[in-house]
């Protein structure tokens, strides 16, 4: 029952790192940032309504940040709501209480998430395996109660209200965020930059170490890597992405409900990443779209949509562990490797 000896659960090679075999798919993978951005830029054309599209964008980024740890480093955290929440509260408080410029507020929110991630990570990386999931969950609940109690700053139980950002003022222009289309593309600029950075990190030597740790933590350590330090850095980076998502969400919703920080929200990141595919670059966005469209559709049918969401999630764990996007990629890869395709 050594938590460290556990092999990777989903037996599929990632198509992303330079460690993957060649092929047409791998060549397409080299343009993953451009392809992802193109898909997200066209997404409003098919989305039911724009507010939902922005939600998908923001929570897709949240799931992407989570997936840096789970999909790439093999660390299952149930505490990422704390980073989403810290980003949201940090940004919201900066705007509501101090009247800062939205850009500064986004930076501040992300910074707060980084600080929370550093503190939580410092404690959580002392545990391994599935203990890590329990520890991160419990630590995030500590953050939750702290924000719950800091009522004067956070609004406590009622959440932080009144984050009104009607327009994003930049030198020379003012972008009207009340126009949902403008809002979508403004958010996409942030999310796109994050996607680009995320891809750079994955392709870097550091990204290679993350994959090595996921594949075989003990071996990575024997190679000479200080596994704990690598994990902590990954935890903080992951927290930064989620913090940015939170800051954008605060501006988008103009309110930060206290539930943002609850571990149920951490669970949503897990669900979205898994629905889309944890071993894929774009999977978290596919998962976020699936989750939110599902929620949106089911909620019109029944107030007990959570029952169905839970059951669908169980079915994915049992029968479709690669997730939707992961399954698509796996099929394409088989086609790619079929006789007549590659030599």
């Amino acid at each position, binding site marked *: 029952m050594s938590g460290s000896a556990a092999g990777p659960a989903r037996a599929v090679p990632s198509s992303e790192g*330079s*460690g993957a075999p060649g092929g047409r798919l791998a060549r397409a993978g080299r343009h993953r940032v451009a392809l992802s951005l193109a898909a997200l830029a066209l997404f409003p054309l098919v989305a039911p309504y724009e507010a939902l599209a922005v939600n998908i964008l923001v929570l897709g980024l949240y799931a992407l940040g989570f997936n840096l740890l789970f999909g790439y480093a093999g660390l299952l955290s149930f505490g990422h709501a704390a980073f989403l929440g810290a980003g949201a509260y940090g940004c919201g408080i900066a705007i509501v209480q101090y009247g800062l410029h939205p850009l500064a507020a986004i930076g501040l929110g992300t910074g707060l998430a980084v600080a929370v991630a550093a503190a939580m990570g410092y404690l959580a990386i002392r545990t391994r395996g599935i203990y890590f999931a329990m520890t991160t969950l419990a630590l995030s609940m500590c953050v939750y109660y702290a924000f719950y109690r800091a009522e004067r700053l956070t609004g406590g139980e009622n959440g932080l209200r009144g984050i009104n950002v009607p327009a994003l003022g930049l030198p020379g222009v003012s972008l009207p965020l009340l126009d949902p289309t403008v809002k979508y593309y403004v958010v996409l600029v942030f999310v796109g930059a994050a996607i680009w950075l995320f891809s*750079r990190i994955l392709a*870097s030597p550091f990204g290679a*170490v993350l994959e090595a740790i996921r*594949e075989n933590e003990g071996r990575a350590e024997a190679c*000479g890597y200080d596994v704990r330090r690598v994990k902590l850095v990954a935890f903080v980076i992951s927290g930064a992405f989620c913090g940015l998502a939170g800051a954008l969400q605060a501006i988008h919703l103009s309110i930060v409900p206290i539930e943002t920080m609850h571990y149920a929200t951490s669970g949503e990141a897990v669900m979205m990443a898994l629905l889309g595919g944890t071993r894929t670059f774009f999977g978290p966005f596919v998962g976020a779209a699936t989750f939110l469209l599902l929620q949106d559709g089911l909620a019109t049918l029944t107030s007990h949509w959570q029952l169905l969401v839970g059951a669908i999630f169980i079915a994915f764990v049992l029968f479709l562990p690669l997730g939707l996007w992961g399954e698509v990629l796996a099929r394409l890869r088989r086609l790619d490797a079929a006789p007549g395709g590659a030599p």
Partner: protein
Amino acid sequence: MSAVPILATEGVGKRFGAFRALDGVSVAFPEGGITAIIGPNGAGKSTFFNLVSGAFPPSEGRILYRGRDITGSPPHRFAALGIAKSFQITNVFPHLTAHENVRVAAQARRVRFDLLRDRAAYPELARKAEALLAEVGLPDRAGRLARELAHGEQRALEIAMALAADPDLLLLDEPTAGMSPEETRAMMGLVARLAARRTLILVEHKMKLVMDLCRRLIVLHQGRLLAEGTPDAIRADAEVRRVYLGRSA
């Protein structure tokens, strides 16, 4: 033989609960050549291997690397000092290609916290990985996932990963375990070639394999040091014959 041994243990022992796996073993490994650690099942060979390779710390005693006390250092420190190991149970990165396995291993001593440049910004690591794969006889397996390789190939891959750290001291735990006769022959040929340029310590269950290859032998029995010396001296040792060679000699 240089004055300071590359590796030495002083009275190291290891207890697991009430079980004494290893007890007061003091040995010195001179620089260069192959030293083999042999002994029957349960002699404490693997425990000894794990202690000197830094997998876990001893319950008592000290471990010296070039005269420096390294007892209790974490595994990644051992690697940084120039001690590399290949495990008894195949221990690779299964869903990475053979090439990436070796490249990541080589990267450990070269770059650590580079988050923004591409892996391709270090072409020397890729070249090194290719060269090492060729050295262990896997030049045509570079693009395959490690888990798709045959057992013998995975062991060879693992040795390439160990070599990627440019170790002065290479520790191998039963490198031929579970191998076919041909694979075994190829592996022992590789081991002999490797020893030309670095110190090798080899844990081996099959005594015959190492007799012709190694300069010195260390015999463990029931967690204690039973004998050490040249292969000829060990062959002649009455105690060793009694406990270890009993059936075959």
